[in-house]
């Protein structure tokens, strides 16, 4: 018996040459980010950012002398009907087999998204090399421009940048975190429509500023003033099934995240309720996921949502002592009012302008039905724009930071 095993091993050893499917690491070219643009005719233009391992390893190891600096990334682009065929065509120009195994980000341009992404998503989902955990970004400029001009200076590769950006989204909640799997499921589902974060290269200089003080982050990606011409991840693109139907500014996305329960941390500026003309800064945290109840017995569905927010005082330039109980109550009421109004405006906008339920109210409505047939017949997608929505904000300022009492300055 052992002889059989040994013999089998030896036979296998002989067939080591070119054994099926084994690919050395230096036979592959790793694509780190994938971009899709509208191309001529029915085609799309696929852009691939390929990593240059020599340079990356050299940078990390700190070895190597001077000489001309090679780029860590190579951007190649071609035109084809489907993303996967573009991917295959690139192999014509390259000496190595292209691999999508490490493609962490898919960047889709806005005009392509507005036409409908259904065709392209299908091939991405079927291919075994693509990740379900890649991040999706919708770019307001052309994807190829964005990818070429996106040069983060703190990271060696944009792959890391795209992954780390998902972390920073949690700090400001001005853009949603969407992975491919969630996006794809959303395009096929009836109860929650997908959103995707917007990206752009910085367009503005320091010319403008936010329109109202409480609309912090009220820009679309690329419009926020900044002195470095870098990429900005801000705002959201709203989809209905697989077509993009509109955009949300960063400010509105904050309320979107609140209503879906995905806001981790955010900032807000409100006008000072006691002192005119001044502002108060608070940071927001969500205490628990919002409680949503949907009733479907009448003609128009009725949705009631209750969000739980816990702000913390961050800055009180007016010197008013908001730590005191009465004044804190006033502040809380002011904040709750602003949040409630903004949420209602946002929901109204999705109902009238976009006609798309991006908050996931539909998944709560499913509880009222017994079988899938009934749910299908009810057709939430049509009923949602007529729904009555009622939003409650439950707010309590928990902490005031390091200062317990603000002593007013002598005026």
């Amino acid at each position, binding site marked *: 018996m052992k002889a059989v095993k040994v013999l089998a091993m030896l036979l296998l050893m002989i067939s080591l040459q070119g054994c*099926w*499917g084994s690919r050395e690491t230096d036979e592959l070219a790793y694509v780190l980010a994938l971009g899709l643009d509208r191309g001529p005719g029915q085609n799309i233009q696929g852009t691939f950012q390929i990593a240059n391992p020599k340079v990356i390893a050299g940078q990390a190891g700190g070895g190597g002398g001077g000489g001309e600096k090679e780029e860590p990334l190579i951007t190649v682009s071609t035109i084809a009907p489907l993303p996967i065929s573009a991917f295959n065509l690139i192999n014509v120009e390259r000496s190595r087999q292209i691999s999508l195994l490490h493609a962490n980000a898919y960047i889709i341009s806005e005009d392509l998204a507005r036409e409908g992404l259904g065709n392209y998503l299908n091939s991405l989902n079927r291919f075994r090399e693509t*990740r379900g*955990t890649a991040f999706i970004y919708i770019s307001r400029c052309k994807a190829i421009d964005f990818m070429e001009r996106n040069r983060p200076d703190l990271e060696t590769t944009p792959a890391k940048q795209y992954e780390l950006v998902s972390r920073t989204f949690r700090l400001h909640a001005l853009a949603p975190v969407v992975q491919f799997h969630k996006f794809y*499921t959303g395009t*096929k589902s*009836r109860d929650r429509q997908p959103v995707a974060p917007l990206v752009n290269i910085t367009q503005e200089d320091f010319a403008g500023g936010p329109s109202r003080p409480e609309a912090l982050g009220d820009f679309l990606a690329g419009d926020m003033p900044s002195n470095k011409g870098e990429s900005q991840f801000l705002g959201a693109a709203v989809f209905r099934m697989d077509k993009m139907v509109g955009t949300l500014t960063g400010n509105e996305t904050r309320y979107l995240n609140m209503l879906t329960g995905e806001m981790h941390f955010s900032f807000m500026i409100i006008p000072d309720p006691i002192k005119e003309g001044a502002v108060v800064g608070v940071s927001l945290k969500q205490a628990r996921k919002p409680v949503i109840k949907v009733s479907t017995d009448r003609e128009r569905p009725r949705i009631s949502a209750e969000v739980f927010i816990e702000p913390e005082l961050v800055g009180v330039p007016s010197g008013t002592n908001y730590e005191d109980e009465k004044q804190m109550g006033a502040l809380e009421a002011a904040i709750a009012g602003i949040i409630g109004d903004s949420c209602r405006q946002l929901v109204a906008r999705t109902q009238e302008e976009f006609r798309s339920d991006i908050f996931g109210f539909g998944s709560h409505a499913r509880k009222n039905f*017994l079988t899938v047939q*009934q749910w299908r017949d009810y057709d939430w997608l049509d009923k949602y724009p007529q729904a009555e929505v009622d939003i409650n904000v439950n707010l309590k300022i928990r902490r005031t930071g390091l200062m317990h009492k603000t002593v007013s300055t002598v005026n």
Partner: protein
Amino acid sequence: MDGKIKFGMAEAVVLLTMSNMARIFLSFPRALLEMSGPAAWLSSITGMGLAVLQAYLFYHILKPSPGQNIVDIANKSLGNIAGTIFNIIFASFFLAVAALFTRTFSEALIITALPSTPISVLLTGFIMLAVLGSYIGLEAMARSARLTYPFVLSGIALLLLGVSPKWDLQQLFPILGNGPVNVFAMGGLISGAVTEILLAAVIVKSFHGPEMFLKITSRAMLMGFTYLTVLSIVLVITHGWNTAQENTLPFYNLARLIYLGRFFQRTESIFIIIWGFIGMIKVALTLYAAAQTLAGTFRLTDYRPLLWPLALIAYAGSIIPHDMPSALRLESMLIREVAWLPTVALPLVILLVSRIRKRSGPNESG
């Protein structure tokens, strides 16, 4: 060697459970989801009940003649010709299961892990390993199952918990899925068609008696179906049943979604080890059962010489389907339509005949 090996309850239960679990790694959950919608877990529970009933049926067949497995009982009750026919049907059922399983497993491996390997390599590997496993014997298989079971269990738990950030419990509604008829009747029938009970009835000589048989099989069914139920639930709450039906391999797709920080992602290849092992055990066990059945039918002393021809037949059978979707169709046809014959109908006949015989002739030998 048969009849002299006895192993304990733990090993037998684990062996049967692992063999039952093998189908949840393939396309079976997808078919279940398609049939029942979000209520796939209810179908699975129904199937569990049906399987336990099946275990009872076999228990009643085996109880009056301890020390004999179903092959001997068929021979005894039905006489030579009918008994031989029945046993050959059993054996060919096992062989068909082994062949189809090898094929679907190899296809799954090609899709997921080894895209450029020709399928004949994988098929050959599977069959050779099945022959090796059956050759070494049931004892070694049971012990290896027992040995690797903690790893398998922890791997599955890791997988299911690893996608927990993506759980959305709302997706379980509507509760009754595609309608009670579909969920309970059809879904229950699909998931309840298991080969393990018939298999256990063939290897029953290695258990310590028919009571143990009942305990072992019911426990194995409970555990195996629990896995199926839990997996169905997790599938639905992670994907939503709409998109979950699209995946060829739902389990693998779950593994692809694990994203716990930058380091621990795309670790689905580890699960290849787990499910490769389970697949090998299942095919080895089924091949062993087929060989043992035939050896019992023709009253041979040892089943080992039969292994090579049966392996060849299984290999030939696994190449028959033209492509993966037709292999899957064959499999579901096998499960839906054919499986009830050898696992329920024929044993019922055996039971009735043996009862009638007993009642009608106490002076008859047997």
